[in-house]
Structure formats: C-alpha cells, structure tokens
C-alpha cells in the first residue's frame, strides 16, 4: 500500500468501516510511515471535532408543515374525485331557491332550455359552456399537485396568491386560486386565496368551489370567512349547505352561528 491509498482510507479506518484485511494493511502502513502517522492523527482529530459538533433540533414548525403536507396529500388522494364531483353537483344544482319544487323546476328548466336552445339556435353554445365548466372542474384534481407541492414555504405561497390576485383573471389563475383555497396546508394561504377569489365571485365556478370547500375545511376561521364570502357574493344557492352546518352538532359553535346569520341575510 502506498501513502496515497493509505490517506484515502484513513477516514474509513477511523470509523472502523474497513474490512479486517484492508484495515490491517492500512494500519501496517501507518506504523511504518511517520508522515502517514502524523496525517492520520491530524485527520482523526479533525473528524472527531467534526462529529462532535452539536446537532441542533429543528423547530416545531417543520413537523407541523410536513404533517400538514401529508394530511393534504391524503385528502387529495382520498377526496380528489369526490371533491371534483361535489363541485360539479354544486355548479349543476345552483340557484334553486325553490327546493320544494325542485323536480318541477328541473323539468320546466330542461324544457325551457331545450325550447330556447332550439328557438335561438344556442343549443351548441350552451352545451359547450357546460362542457367547458365540467372540464375545468375535472382538471382541478390534477392541478392540486402544482398548487400545493410545487410551491415553496408558506410566505412564498402567500406571495404567489397576491401576485395571482393582480394578474388578469383567466381560467388557470382562477383554478390555481381555488386549489390553494381548497388544499393548501396553511390557513393563511387559504384565507389569502379566498380573499383573492372574492374579485371573481361573480363566476359560478368560484362560488361553487367555496361552497364545496366550506364543510370540509378543518379551520373554523376559514369556514367563517367562507360563509362571509358567500353572503357578500349573494350566493343564494348556499342556503341548503348552510342549513346543514347549522344542524351539524359537531361543527364549531362560531361556524354554526355564522351560518345561521348567513341564512337570514341570504
């Protein structure tokens, strides 16, 4: 064994990582080579100092953030399709102020739609709009990863939301905000996204998304903000969901009270 090879194996010798034969060979060389012996001593001391450096513990925020991501991913995995279909249902069943006459209204609505469509020749356009709406809802699940996982820390995601707020609202921007509101692990980011979405509350898909997220958001503060959003947006279609919240004994008391007031205002 030459000095160069011996030097390269010194750290492993100090860590007892070498097999017995190689270790014996390196030791034998060090015994017979004063320069390598000094080098080994010096490097061993440096390794000892390096390994003795205190290892600080991370803050509790790290655990909270990662566990939040895991929960978000579980939610996405479990409820992605379910959530998308709930939005679709919410969007499709929007605006029914007469639940007692639901079937009749649906029938009349369908007849009227067909009649108007045939009369005005807009059947194709209406179908296309509905298809586009559904397509947007269906792609939301795929956008979740982009929204949640490709963003950085909480501050960065909030900045992204604010930047998005200033952008010209196209479909992708709206979808991004909806995904942040629905799936981001941070309450602050979800609230920021909800605030940014208020500028687009005239859009049906936005109101439907807020309504779909309301019962499943784990944070009462966000839920109350969502209720305020729906009231401000005059989302009359929210009343059935709000009644369910009021009746839900497991829901937070403040959330139930907010829902009760919202029903009165709507």
């Amino acid at each position, binding site marked *: 064994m030459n000095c160069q090879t011996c030097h390269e194996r010194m750290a492993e010798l100090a860590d007892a990582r070498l097999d017995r034969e190689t270790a014996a060979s390196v030791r034998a060389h060090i015994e017979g080579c004063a320069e390598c*012996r000094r080098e080994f001593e010096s490097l061993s001391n440096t390794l*000892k100092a390096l390994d*003795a450096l205190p290892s600080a513990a991370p803050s509790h925020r790290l655990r909270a953030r990662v566990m939040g991501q895991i929960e978000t991913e579980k939610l996405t995995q479990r409820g992605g399709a379910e959530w998308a279909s709930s939005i679709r249902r919410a969007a499709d069943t929007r605006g029914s102020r007469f639940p007692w006459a639901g079937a009749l209204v649906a029938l009349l609505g369908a007849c009227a739609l067909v009649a108007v469509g045939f009369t005005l020749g807009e059947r194709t356009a209406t179908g296309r709009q509905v298809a586009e709406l559904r397509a947007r809802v269906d792609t939301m699940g795929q956008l979740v990863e982009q929204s949640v996982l490709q963003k*950085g*820390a909480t501050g960065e995601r909030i900045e992204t939301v604010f930047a998005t707020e200033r952008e010209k609202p196209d479909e992708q921007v709206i979808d991004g905000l909806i995904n942040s509101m629905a799936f981001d692990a941070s309450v602050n980011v979800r609230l920021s996204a909800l605030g940014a979405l208020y500028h687009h509350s005239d859009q049906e898909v936005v109101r439907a998304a807020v309504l779909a997220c309301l019962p499943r958001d784990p944070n009462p503060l966000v839920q109350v903000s969502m209720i305020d959003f729906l009231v401000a947006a005059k989302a009359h279609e929210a009343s059935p969901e709000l009644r369910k919240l009021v009746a839900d004994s497991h829901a937070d008391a403040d959330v139930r009270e907010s829902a009760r007031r919202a029903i009165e205002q709507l």
Partner: protein
Amino acid sequence: MTPSIAEYPVHERPFGLEWGPSPSVDDKALTPDHELMLAVRDGDLDCMGELFERHHGPLYGYLLKLTGNRSAAEDICQVVFQRMLKYRHTYRDQGSFTAWMYHLSRRCASDHFRKSSSAPIATDPSRLAEHADEAQSADESAASRDDHALLHRALGRLDRDDREVLLLSRLQELSFSEVAGILECSVGAARVRAHRALKTLRDHYLQLQKESPS
C-alpha cells in the same frame, strides 16, 4: 515519543453524532424504512409520518451543517419530504430509503443554492451556546464553543461540493457505495473527494485555530 497506531482513536461510530443509523432500522420490532416507503408508494400515506419522525432529525442536522443556516435547513428538509410524497411512485423495490432520501436532499439543496445566490454562511456562533454540554465546566464549555465556532467557520470556507461529500461520508447510515451513488460518481472518486475535502477542512481549521486569540 510517537504513540503507536493502536493508541490513535478508531471509533466504532463517530463521536457525539446523533445522525447514526436510525434506531428504528435496527430495531426488529419496528417496520424497516424500506417497507414503510413501499407502503407509502402503495398509498398508505400514514407511513410517511413515521418516516418523518425517524429521519427528520438527522436530515436536518446534515442540512444545517451543509447550509450553515437553520431556516434554510428547515425549508430544504420540508421540500425533501414534499418530494418524497410527490415522487413516491418512483421509489424502487430494491431501493435503500436512506440513500434515496439523501439523493433527494442533494437535489433540493442544489435548488436552494441556485435560488439564493448568497454563499452559505457559518452558523451564528452565539447559537451554539444553546447546545453546550451542561456537564462541562464554564471554561471547558466556553473552549468547546470556541472550537465549534471555528469548525463551523472552517466548514463555511469549504466549497459546497467539498462540504457535501464530506458530510455525506460522515453519515453512518450510508455506505461509501451509496454516497458514490448519491454523488453520481464512482466509489473510488467519492473516496478521493471525501479525503481531499477532509484535508481541506483540517487545513482551514488549523489555520483558524492559529489565527484565533488563545
């Protein structure tokens, strides 16, 4: 008189290192990391929480020494676990979880350094007081803190690549062939690079010791 080779320290494992093999890996009563990660890959995301509990401490310690910055180390650590979730489908049946985790952390750290153009800085020495050994006397403790501060500064003077290979080679969970795999080079090349990095660190450390007022 020069001591015999037998008197030089040969350690079963590095001193004071809390990064050693995860106890869970050795503990037969617990599920091995690899099986947990396979379960995550197959959709049982609860297992990721267990992997986090087992590994975030050592990983954070590694990243803290690599970056010299607590906040950056936490951010990178978070991104590593994010990517484990995101890329869980790429985890292989014959994989080593630890090697995969450090492979991801290398990519994440690289992204971090690319985004933040500022060079890594050594940890604020004042923070080292938080971790001083309480069993030591005040003088010993102060001397130890000084030594730690010097070594942090010496680490900060290393090129990032040197710091990376050196710190990876100190992780007892990783074999040298795994370190080589993470660095995407041959085992021989990894060994040479680790040795050179150690020598450079030693030189910086000795230089700083000479410069510091005793």
